């Protein structure tokens, strides 16, 4: 940069600024500025031309005024004039003004671009740099349009100065970020990659940022950068700290460059080339070794730089996840940081360890630090570090240390920060469930959880306890006993009351033998909490009471008394009142047998994915949410095939599904004909989705909510009227008959005429992929069913049927699939197909499964079409025409003239015709525009030779398709199929 000469001091500017600073009030400032603006306007207007110095001074003043927050609507021209000056300072001020006050005025932009172009092509490196900085600062689309082609050339030109190269690389990066479509690297790619070999470290540092950004978009093109980066890295790592001179920062050689190189390598899988890989491993080892060396300086900058490289190297090791040796070493290294006095280091170490824990190689190594981590959880001052420690504990937990970790987390929970309590609760609940060896431990843990942090225990947690207790006979007695004991505490959390009410209502009899927990004692204990609880809990307790009447007939009169009291039977809350009235009636009218049936023990819950896990994933925020979760979120947003009317349906169903039965009609529990069927009996599969949606929409987990709050419903549903029916949680509205094929299934079918692989069907729940191969008259099809949700599909069944006469034409055999698809999992089904004779219909595939209790039923057409059995036949022009003439009977020919649905691209047409299975014959038709094909359809019964001619008319955008084959039905069908394709 040229030294500022004495004349460039710009006294006027300094005076102006000090005037403004001395202004007493806003008004005075505005007055001063107005005066100055008027002065500048008169100067710019003045007839005699201003010299560069004054122009620069006034432009500076304008810039200052603009930065004070005033509008500037002139002076652009003068600034552009400054650009063409030869003095550095004048040019610099000009560029500064343009970068700050860029104006989308078209003429001006042209002038600016022109000036920039001049500077770029000048040989003066400072001017080039100024121009590049200006482009990068503005970074607009116009700039990108004008210069995106120019800058790569400067970047790779041999004679460009290093400093300019640096600027050019960063400028290009900026343009690429703002308008990636305009920056086309293409031919420059390899030369840009070779900048990694540049002598000048600054250029390498700048270039690597660019390469990292570019390679994230198209990793394949930049693949070569891996080996270059590795060799560069190894040179830096192995260099002595004095080798790099300017680029050594507190005894660490080129720390920024090293970090960037390591980050670039993280964009790629481990190098396949053994030598490169060896070198890289060596580098990583050196970095780890260096970290062990005693520090060369006590300065914090030295350790910062060193650790930055180390952490970047560790993330690379974790990214590769293939070097057990390195992983363990990294883990040990991080272990040392766990007790470092730098808070940031502890945080980073814990964070990296979380990822290390998930790797199979280093899991064990991470586990050795358990004591330190637990200690960190207890004694750490910084809450964000504690949070990480909790995360790490969760990540390193397995069967061997679960008890310890859960105990530690539970004890920490009492003092934990409020912000992370809910997450901690969820984690404890998950770990307890996941690694529970005996379920009494699990029950203890969760009850403890509710006792310690009741407010943070979400619904899902206690639903889950109840699900598990109900499903496992061996813990029921223990659970009842523990709950009973827990409830004896003078103050217990409402969630505890809920769990207690539910479990005692179901299994109170198991502990009734003990005189200390006799039925009446149990009842009194529960009822002592009653008045402290909220309405939903009270409702649950009422259900528990009616269960008590069944379990212990001796309590009947006491409970009836309670139900009859004004506070129940005349409760202002409709739900409570209704329950009280209904239960009272039920207990007085029904005989013991009926009562016993109605109030039978709850049936086991179907196994499903823990809802807690889903909740935790949600809590983690968008960053950690898996694809499934996103899908679910979308569904909640409500974009199902139902469309507009769905809203109404959903709400209608939601209300009828809610726990409040309509007062009069359901009094006797005749919910046999749920309003759902009456509402839309024809809606078929649509309704199923809507139904499950209703649950999701309501509060996200209504489907999990069924057991507790709906207990009364199911009780009622089995009322005296239909006491023989088994309790089924949600009313099933969908018939078990296979649904009619989806309306779009024909379209789906057409998609597969010319290809064998792809996605057959996709909705919010399910994705069906297809892969098929055909030989002669035989075919094999692989169907892949993917569960897109996080919830299991149960009773998943598929059937393939051939309707009507297809049965005699096609022989289809399918293997059965597993009836259970885990959330996010995929299962495969193989279908063997044999073509007996030519056919025109397609076999049907029916899929049934239960998703969240609701039956899903859908039918698709399998993409098996006659053309799949084509055997291509090559023939010469003469042969073709001879055969063409032979098949001249009118019924053997099928012809169709139709409009083009897609663009008439020759290559696409060829690909489609080939995909159809026939041989495409070149040089047969006299008109080169036309296509002719020949093939033989192989069926078991016979072979059908077919010829095809397709005549495109580009002008009219029409096609004429003529198919001739030895069998009339085949010609017709082929013609039908193909006409949809073009």
């Amino acid at each position, binding site marked *: 940069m040229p030294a500022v000469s004495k004349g460039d001091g710009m006294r006027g500017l300094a005076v102006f600024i000090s005037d403004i600073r001395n202004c007493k009030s806003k008004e005075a400032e505005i007055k001063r500025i107005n005066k100055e603006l008027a002065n500048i306007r008169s100067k710019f207007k003045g007839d005699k031309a201003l010299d560069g110095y004054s122009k620069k001074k006034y432009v500076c003043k304008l810039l200052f005024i603009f930065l004070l927050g005033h509008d500037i*609507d*002139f002076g652009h021209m003068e600034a552009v004039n400054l650009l063409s000056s030869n003095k550095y300072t004048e040019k610099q001020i000009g560029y500064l003004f343009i970068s700050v006050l860029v104006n989308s*005025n078209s003429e001006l932009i042209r002038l600016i671009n022109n000036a920039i172009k001049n500077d770029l092509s000048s040989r003066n490196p400072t001017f080039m740099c100024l121009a590049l900085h200006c482009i990068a600062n503005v970074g607009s689309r116009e700039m990108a349009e004008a210069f995106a082609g120019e800058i790569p050339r400067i970047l790779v030109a041999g004679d460009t100065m290093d400093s300019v190269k640096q600027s050019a690389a960063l400028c290009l990066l900026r343009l690429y970020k703002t308008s990636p479509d305009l920056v086309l690297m293409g031919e420059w790619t390899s030369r840009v990659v070779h900048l990694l070999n540049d002598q000048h470290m600054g250029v390498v540092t700048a270039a690597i940022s660019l390469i990292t950004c570019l390679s994230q978009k198209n990793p394949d093109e930049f693949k070569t950068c891996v080996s270059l980066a590795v060799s560069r890295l190894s040179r830096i790592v192995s260099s002595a700290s004095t080798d790099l001179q300017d680029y050594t920062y507190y005894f660490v050689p080129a720390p920024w460059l090293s970090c960037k190189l390591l980050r670039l390598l993280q964009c790629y899988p481990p190098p396949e080339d053994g030598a490169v890989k060896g070198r890289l491993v060596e580098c990583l080892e050196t970095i780890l070794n260096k970290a062990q060396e005693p520090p060369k300086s006590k300065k914090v900058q030295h350790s910062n730089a060193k650790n930055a490289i180390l952490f970047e190297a560790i993330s690379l090791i974790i990214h590769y996840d293939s070097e057990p040796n390195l992983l363990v070493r990294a883990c040990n290294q991080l272990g040392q940081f766990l007790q470092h006095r730098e808070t940031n280091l502890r945080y980073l170490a814990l964070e990296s360890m979380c990822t290390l824990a998930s790797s199979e190689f280093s899991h064990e190594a991470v586990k050795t630090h358990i004591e330190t981590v637990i200690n960190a959880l207890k004694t750490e001052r910084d809450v964000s570090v504690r949070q990480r420690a909790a995360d790490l504990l969760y990540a390193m937990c397995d069967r061997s240390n679960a008890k310890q970790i859960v105990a530690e987390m539970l004890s920490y929970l009492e003092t934990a920060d409020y912000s992370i309590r809910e997450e901690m609760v969820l984690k404890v609940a998950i770990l307890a469930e996941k690694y529970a060896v005996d379920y009494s431990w699990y029950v203890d843990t969760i009850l403890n959880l509710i006792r310690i942090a009741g407010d943070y225990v979400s619904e899902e947690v206690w639903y889950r306890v109840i699900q598990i207790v109900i499903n496992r006979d061996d813990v029921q007695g223990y659970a009842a006993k523990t709950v009973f004991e827990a409830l004896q505490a003078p103050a217990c959390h409402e969630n505890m009351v809920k769990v207690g009410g539910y479990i005692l209502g179901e299994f109170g009899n198991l502990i009734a033998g003990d005189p200390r927990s006799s039925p009446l004692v149990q009842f009194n204990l529960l009822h002592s909490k009653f008045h402290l609880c909220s309405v939903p809990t009270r409702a649950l307790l009422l259900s528990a009471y009616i269960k008590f009447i069944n379990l212990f007939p001796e309590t009947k009169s006491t409970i009836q008394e309670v139900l009859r009291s004004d506070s129940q039977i005349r409760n202002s809350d409709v739900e409570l009142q209704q329950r009280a009235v209904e239960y009272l009636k039920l207990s007085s009218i029904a005989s013991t047998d009926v009562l016993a049936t109605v109030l039978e023990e709850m049936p086991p819950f179907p196994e499903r994915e823990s809802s807690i896990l889903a909740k935790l994933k949600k809590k983690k925020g968008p960053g950690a949410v898996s694809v499934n979760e996103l899908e679910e979120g979308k569904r909640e947003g409500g974009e199902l095939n139902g469309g507009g009317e769905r809203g109404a349906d959903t709400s209608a169903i939601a209300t009828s599904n809610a726990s409040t039965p309509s007062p009069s009609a359901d009094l006797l529990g005749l919910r046999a004909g749920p309003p759902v069927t009456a509402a839309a009996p024809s809606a078929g599969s649509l309704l199923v989705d809507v139904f499950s949606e209703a649950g999701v929409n309501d509060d996200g987990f209504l489907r999990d909510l069924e057991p507790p709050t709906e207990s009364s419903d199911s009780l009622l549903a089995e009322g005296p009227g239909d006491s023989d029916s088994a309790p089924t949680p949600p009313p099933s509205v969908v018939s078990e008959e296979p649904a009619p094929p989806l309306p779009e299934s024909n379209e789906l079918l057409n998609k597969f005429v010319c290809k064998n692989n792809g996605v057959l069907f996709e909705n919010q729940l399910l994705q069906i992929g297809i892969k098929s191969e055909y030989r002669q008259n035989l075919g094999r099809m692989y169907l892949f069913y993917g569960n897109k949700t996080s919830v299991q599909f149960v009773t998943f069944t598929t059937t393939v049927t051939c309707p009507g006469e297809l049965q005699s034409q096609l022989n289809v055999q399918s293997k059965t699939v597993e009836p259970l698809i885990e959330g996010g999992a995929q299962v495969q089904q193989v279908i063997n197909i044999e073509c007996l004779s030519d056919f025109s219909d397609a076999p049907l595939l029916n899929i049934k499964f239960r998703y969240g209790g609701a039956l899903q039923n859908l039918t698709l057409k399998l993409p098996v079409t006659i053309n799949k059995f084509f055997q291509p036949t090559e023939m010469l022009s003469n042969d073709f025409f001879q055969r063409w003439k032979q098949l001249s009977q009118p019924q053997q020919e099928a012809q169709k003239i139709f409009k083009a649905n897609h663009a008439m691209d020759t290559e696409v047409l060829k690909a489609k015709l080939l995909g159809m299975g026939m041989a495409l014959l070149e040089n047969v038709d006299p008109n080169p525009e036309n296509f002719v094909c020949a093939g033989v359809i192989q069926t078991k019964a016979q072979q059908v030779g077919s010829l095809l001619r397709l005549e495109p008319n580009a002008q009219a955008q029409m096609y004429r398709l003529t198919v001739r084959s030895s069998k009339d039905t085949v010609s017709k069908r082929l013609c039908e199929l193909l006409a949809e394709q073009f």
Partner: protein
Amino acid sequence: MIGGLFIYNHKGEVLISRVYRDDIGRNAVDAFRVNVIHARQQVRSPVTNIARTSFFHVKRSNIWLAAVTKQNVNAAMVFEFLYKMCDVMTAYFGKISEENIKNNFVLIYELLDEILDFGYPQNSETGALKTFITQQGIKGQHQTKEEQSQITSQVTGQIGWRREGIKYRRNELFLDVLESVNLLMSPQGQVLSAHVSGRVVMKSYLSGMPECKFGMNDKIVIDKQGKGGTTDDPGKSESGGSGKQSIAIDDCTFHQCVRLSKFDSERSISFIPPDGEYELMRYRTTKDIILPFRVIPLVREVGRTKLEVKVVIKSNFKPSLLAQKIEVRIPTPLNTSGVQVICMKGKAKYKASENAIVWKIKRMAGMKESQISAEIELLPTNDKKKWARPPISMNFEVPFAPSGLKVRYLKVFESKLNYSDHDVIKWVRYIGRSGIYETRC
């Protein structure tokens, strides 16, 4: 009620802070500074609500006065109090400036204790205040017990604004009718809005406890009397150009000494005046206003870089009267690069800092006309938005009341002392000033 009162300088530093109620914390001081004084966008509303706390502010030169409350108070009362407070401070130490406030802060706290009690405004009559809040240090020694008890009985008595035993050799009184006339006129000369707000300010030097009666040409009174058949108007239209005899007053407010019950029943204004200067009444009229000046603008755009402006002003009152301090302000576009002005009378100058041409005339008689023409050079800009053409504004002072108000009489009765109405020397003066007097161009 007012919870607290703060005075800030232009930088937002607190000069005076007096909190009257517990619901106002110290953080209120900062809240106002941050949200109003230092606000990004200029706060134009005089009432600001921040966190359920209301701030009422007025600005005098560079000083902010803010009254704070958490309750739902009568906003008009608060502002009235703030203005009164400004008057009191001006009466005590002159101009309200940062320096004066800093120099008199003890006095100000003393005053604040006196005129506000637990947030309720108290006696703010300067004359009365000056008897017991003085600037001469402790007066206790010199004051006799009698004097002290006299002050107490006066301040707490029925007529708190006047003490007994005042004696003047010459009984004299001065009556000023001060009006400001506001106008907005279209370029074609159509009146878009106009109103006059006026004040009657009285300075009385009267002995004893005189009973005064003030009469003016209020339409309601005149009409009532007209029905009664008595037309004793003292002189028809001495000043101004109005030939009408009565005016319609839209609303009016009085000094606390005026007996409102009498005004309500008889529409007569009778009172025992305070000693010295005070504002007897305030009023507003909107009908039949005499507009002292007419501004006729003519703006022509010559190309993109030149603007020609010609403005004619016509005085519209009796030729015998002289208007003073006339100032016409012609806004110029924001891209003005040079101005040439020619005017027949007075002086005209382009003031770049205010983006306006200011034309000043010292004196001008009625029924005259004068004009100015200016050529404005413009700098071509790439800004597409057009110049908004702000209105031409005007300032002046005329020796008559533009509302047409006339003082018909001011009678003084003092039964105890021996002087009659005829012995009192009375002076009446009319001054009309411009308020916001604008003409669009």
